[in-house]
């Protein structure tokens, strides 16, 4: 691996020497001699807790969401172990119910939703736009503190006994019947929502106001487009969640009749409101991943994405159409046939822009110059798993099929293919890709590749059997199950242990690399974009000279003109 790495360094040196990059490179070559202090220079706790630097805040988020991820993953591991036997001998039903609620709540609101936006988005958005920071740096820090507060309350709810409603909090179970700490957990999620809203606002304003000179909307990076679309959902959908949870808590605490029919309420109203938020939230959990993958594909095919405008607008289309399909979660909840049909139709419609993206990514590879480094492996894994997730989404949008597979393991498998196979793969890919920029060090490439492959295999082994389980009829949220389902559950648990390894490894070697990794050049991948023109790690204010966008985005030199390492 060292041989490969040194060739890369040589390439970097040759590229600078031969002046192959436009203007900013020259500026930056001058700058490098002065060695501006990197954003990681200061080491005091104070310098972290009171920072308004978007890069440091991104890292604060990274540390926090890893904690939540680990807790939620442990919950999943215990559940999978319990499901090894049909009678669920390991833990009691009540514990099981609390575990899947913990897993869902933490993974959704405290890991997936903030994962790419708050970590990579925070770190990269200003860099990609050529800005010194986000539009409202203090607000950004406030978002993190709000996030911490929400998370602390959620963890407190777990410590004092947990919640057993599932992350969906369906009424009247949550509002009247559950004996667990529902209101407390709802408060945690409610507060967490404000962090999302503030981050969304910050990103929207930043994208509108802080773009470098020359950076028109159609010269925006696709990652920025996806962040923009995600931020719109943050700002428009999250308030609905806040209101819904408030109403639920009101009913629970003061018996205000909203959802419980015994109090004159309508239990379906809750589902409408909840999914009006949560379906768009599903797109919060995939759009950023799509943005990252667009970046990875371009950088490792050394090519402009095929159909830039279509990929960009597909993000916007998904964000908007995503608001119109919530009823597909309620096909069997006694809504009218006509309503069911409309929601089914719209759900098919929202699949079109997703298909467009997959086709465009594939076409981007055509006549590219492709290297299969770790991030690219993750990106390819993403496309594969996301395609399976998307295709099975079509099954669920098909009314006749959904009636059978709704609330079974089929649905579980489907959305894990999107959220874990999609979003988490993209997050890992992105983390590896920008790791040299974030830490200034390279991660061990061979281990990285191995991990990407292990994750892919473990993932499929975990979740593919669940499609079959679901069609056979195993309902979700079952602590015990009839014996005929055992084989697939055992397979799934076996897969989960491999998958776990795939997450554990990067945790170790990325930390290791902070100290022992090879120093990364400014642009180890030879990729295009402002973030690669500044030092690794970047200086406090990102750029010594404000960059100017003088060319189209992803303007990779035609093949043959680039400096080749050998």
């Amino acid at each position, binding site marked *: 691996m060292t041989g490969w790495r040194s060739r890369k360094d040589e390439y970097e040196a040759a590229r600078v020497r031969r002046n192959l990059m436009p203007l900013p490179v020259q500026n930056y070559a001058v700058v490098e001699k002065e060695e501006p202090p990197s954003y990681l220079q200061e080491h005091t706790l104070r310098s972290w807790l009171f920072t308004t630097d978007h890069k440091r805040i991104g890292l604060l988020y990274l540390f926090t969401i890893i904690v939540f991820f680990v807790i939620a993953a442990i919950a999943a591991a215990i559940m999978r172990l319990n499901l090894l036997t049909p009678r669920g001998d390991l833990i009691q039903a009540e514990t099981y119910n609390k575990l899947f609620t913990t897993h869902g709540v933490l993974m959704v609101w405290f890991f997936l939703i903030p994962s790419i936006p708050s970590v990579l988005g925070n770190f990269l958005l200003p860099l990609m736009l050529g800005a010194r920071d986000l539009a409202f740096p203090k607000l950004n820090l406030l978002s993190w503190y709000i996030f911490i507060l929400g998370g602390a309350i959620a963890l407190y709810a777990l410590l004092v006994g947990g919640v057993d*409603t599932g992350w969906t909090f*369906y009424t009247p179970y949550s509002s009247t019947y559950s004996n667990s700490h529902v209101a407390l957990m709802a408060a945690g999620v409610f507060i967490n929502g404000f962090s999302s809203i503030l981050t969304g606002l910050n990103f929207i304003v930043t994208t509108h106001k802080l773009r470098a000179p020359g950076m028109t909307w159609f010269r925006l990076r696709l990652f920025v487009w996806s962040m923009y679309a995600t931020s719109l959902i943050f700002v428009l959908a999250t308030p609905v969640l806040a209101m819904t949870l408030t109403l639920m808590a009101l009913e629970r605490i003061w018996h205000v009749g909203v959802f419980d029919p015994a109090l004159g309420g309508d239990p379906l109203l809750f589902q409408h409101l909840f999914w009006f938020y949560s379906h768009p939230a599903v797109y919060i959990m995939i759009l950023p991943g799509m943005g990252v993958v667009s970046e990875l594909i371009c950088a490792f095919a050394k090519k402009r994405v*095929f159909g830039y405008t279509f990929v960009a607008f597909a993000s916007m289309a998904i964000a908007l159409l995503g608001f119109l399909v919530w009823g597909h979660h309620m096909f069997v909840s006694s809504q009218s046939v006509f309503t069911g049909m409309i929601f089914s139709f719209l759900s098919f419609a929202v699949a079109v822009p997703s298909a467009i993206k997959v*086709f465009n990514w594939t076409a981007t590879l055509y006549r590219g110059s492709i290297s299969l480094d770790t991030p690219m492996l993750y990106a390819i894994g993403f496309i594969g798993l996301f395609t399976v997730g998307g295709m099975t989404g079509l099954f669920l949008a098909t009314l*006749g099929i959904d009636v059978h597979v709704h609330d079974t393991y089929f649905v579980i498998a489907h959305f894990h293919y999107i959220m874990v196979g999609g979003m988490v793969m993209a997050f890992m890919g992105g983390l590896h890709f920008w790791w040299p920029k974030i830490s200034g060090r390279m991660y061990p490439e061979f281990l990285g590749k191995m991990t990407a492959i292990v994750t892919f295999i473990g993932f499929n082994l975990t979740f593919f059997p669940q499609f079959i389980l679901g069609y056979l009829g195993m309902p979700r949220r079952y602590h015990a199950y009839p014996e005929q389902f055992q084989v697939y559950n055992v397979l799934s648990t076996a897969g989960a242990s491999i998958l776990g390894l795939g997450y554990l490894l990067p945790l170790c070697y990325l930390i290791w690399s902070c100290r022992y990794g090879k120093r990364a050049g400014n642009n180890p991948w030879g990729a295009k974009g402002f973030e690669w023109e500044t030092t690794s790690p970047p200086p406090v204010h990102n750029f010594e000279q404000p960059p100017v966008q003088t060319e189209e985005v992803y303007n990779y030199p035609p093949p043959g003109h680039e400096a080749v390492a050998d």
Partner: protein
Amino acid sequence: MTTIAQIQFFPDQASKMAGQVDTLLVWLILLTGAVTFAIAAVMIFFLAKYRKRAAADRTPPKAENLAIEVTWSVIPFFIFLGLFGWGAKIYFNESIDPKNAMEVHVVGKQWMWKLEHLQGKREINELHVPLGQTVKLVMTSQDVIHCFFMPAFRIKEDVLPGRYTTQWFKATKAGTYSIFCAQYCGTNHALMTGQVIVMTPTDFAAWLKTGRETVSVAQRGEQLFHSLGCSGCHAAQAAVRAPLLEGIYGSQVPLADGRIVHADERYLRDCILIPNTQIVAGFDPVMPSFQGRISEDDLFAIITYLKSIGSSPPEANIPNR
């Protein structure tokens, strides 16, 4: 432990509807499978052909191509339209109120299913039905939301407190099939399971006669109609002016607020529990609410009784103004 031979790949198929759903599934698998493999093949081909060190034609292609983009948006769209139509047709058929159906009442409660046949026979977590007979389940919950799921018939429908939901199936294969609660409903959700037992009609008739003597649900409803005092107002010779209820089920009822509603189970239920929300045109809102005074079982019985009396539209109810 299960042996290899016991591994199931496909759930039992015990109705025509199940066959239709499976056919659609197989087509979906073939279609999406083909597309997925095609994408994978193209991608792997590109990855191999255009890998960095390989010599290949790399003349930059056009970076945007409207014709291609439109093609690969429109073709999937039309395929989706077909799938939508196919799935919607099954859904529509499942939702049509079946004719000549045998009705069974289902009450879900944490964590059991209580079922009652119209003949008055009750069961818990078991549903006996005759082969070849359409069965309509009229369902409600006493507490939280449940979901009555029968994989062998590929159907499920949520069971909600405070309202009726229905679903129907027609078994075409004798046997014993699972019932699951599919909507999370609390601690023992996973234990809220049961069995559908499909028997030949003769066996079923014999089964109905087993156990202790029962009065039919409608008869029980009639008794309740008197004992709860409904007949004191709703009988023809009653002192209070109240609509006659003969033939009300299935009729169109004009309401005081100008709406005309279809009198189905849900309407009847609301009339009894929350009469003030829908006042029949031309009558005073004097009917008391029976909310909290009547169990789900008894409510079912009264409604069944109301459904059983007369089928002529109650013209007498529409007052001359």
